[in-house]
């Protein structure tokens, strides 16, 4: 069992999606996260173990390597694809409640901003760490965040912005979210955003990289 879970983690870490995928070149012709996850389920390995000891371990390594500039966005995207393929096999277990997520994370790029790559990276890594992620996309206003929070009580919120002209919209969203559901924790990130800015707008956490968001959320889930 451990060997199979290690292989799944390895496939996620190195972005091996399935047998047909030519990436990474040194794993050409080998099974990927797709086949191995299916095999693990067929062998009766608990879906929770596949998530926690396979996917989460693999994605954590991806987050750390990305933070340390050992890998870059294309490699992270491949890992996320491998992880998503594996997760698609676990969906019925999430739906039945036999596999529990750590919590729900509602993420979006703020109103006026159409950039999605940073937001996508955070969403992928958080999801790969065992969270349910509700991705609201780009150009998202405060009303939309509040609506989604009402549908998913207890969710955490992630706000992304790439532009100095749109980062200011974070302030309004934080204000509205806190006014509607005061206990909501709001994380912010993006190229122009900083710890100073987080303090200024009353957000709860700033991270310069996706792994920081994952670590914060995991710590909150443990608290």
């Amino acid at each position, binding site marked *: 069992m451990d060997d199979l879970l290690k292989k799944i983690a390895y496939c996620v870490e190195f*972005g091996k999606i399935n047998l047909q*995928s*030519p*990436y990474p070149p040194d794993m050409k012709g080998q099974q990927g996260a797709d086949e191995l996850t299916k095999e693990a389920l067929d062998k009766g390995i608990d879906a929770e173990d596949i998530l926690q000891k396979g996917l989460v371990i693999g994605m954590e390594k991806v987050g750390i390597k990305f933070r340390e*500039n050992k*890998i*870059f*966005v*294309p*490699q992270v*995207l*491949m890992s996320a*694809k491998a992880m998503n393929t594996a997760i698609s096999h676990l969906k019925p277990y999430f739906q039945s409640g036999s596999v529990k997520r750590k919590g729900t994370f509602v993420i979006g790029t703020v109103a*006026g901003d*159409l950039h*999605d*790559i940073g937001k*996508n990276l955070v969403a992928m890594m958080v999801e790969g760490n065992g969270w349910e992620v509700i991705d609201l996309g780009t150009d998202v206003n405060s009303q939309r965040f509040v609506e989604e929070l009402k549908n998913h009580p207890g969710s955490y919120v992630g706000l992304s912005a790439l532009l*100095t*002209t749109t980062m*200011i919209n974070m302030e309004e969203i934080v204000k509205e979210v806190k006014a509607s559901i005061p206990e909501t924790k709001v994380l912010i990130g993006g*190229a*122009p955003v*900083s710890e*100073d800015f987080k303090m200024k707008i009353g957000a709860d956490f700033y991270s310069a990289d996706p792994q920081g968001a994952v670590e914060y959320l995991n710590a909150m889930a443990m608290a």
Partner: protein
Amino acid sequence: MHFAARFNNHTYAEFASDYRILVESNIKAMEYFDMDMVGLISDPFRETSAFGAEITFPDDAVPKCEYPIIQTYEDVKSLKNPDVYKNFRTLDRIKGAKYFQELLKGEVPVIGWIEGPLAEACDLAGVSNMLIQLMIDPDFVHQLLDKCIITAKDFARAQIEAGCNLIGIGDAICSQIDRNTYDNYIKERHKEIINYIHEQGAKVKLHICGNITHLLPSLKEVGMDILDLDWQVDMDYAFEIVGPDVIRCGNIDPVVIQNKSEEEVIELTINLLEKEKGRRHILSAGCEITVNTPVQNLLAMRKESYIDTNE
């Protein structure tokens, strides 16, 4: 860009869609802040429009590409290189180059602008899709990049013929790829475009947004005259790697210039200029001066550079 548009009381949609407004806004900013160059950059979607994508112009934001026109390898194969004189957006920039020369009479260097090959490929195919293709489908990538550099060269030549002294190549997304991928797919293409621009008689400024520290050893070999550096890159380290011949342009954090006090901006400018003394360097933000930058902060930055140059 956006700063210049607002400084001249225009929306960004007007700035990006009418060369007269773009040129006049830049000249107004140049005169007020006593800048040494003017440019034609506005947004990444001039060539993308010429390739056939639908571009819309929100009032006060960067133009947006409604959807990527390349999804499959078949799309890449059927993509036709456009005539840059026939598309309204590329022609608008070419006319801008002429208008600059008409107004400035050759007394101020004019920087034209083209999308670098990977940036243009991402504009056409979508960022995530293109970055994934880099990992899995070399045929897709090579064919698309080759088509992008044909148009990049055509567009650069047209702007040089219209009066540009320099051409900026914007390949922002390169900071997000590893050096090996850069070397395999982009480096030679950067060299090819740069050599071509040099043959046409213009200089080249290469701009890659973000942290490009890991690419510097490769970039030193591509032959640009000016290398734009964003605030994340250490200027000393860049000097050490790219050497004394390349002019480094940068690199005060634009968010700092926007949000800090005039005194803090002055201090940062003095520190940078002190470090750069005796080296080939152009003072600028790294990257763009933001639209909400206080006028006095930008004036302070300029004033310090003036004092330094005259010492």
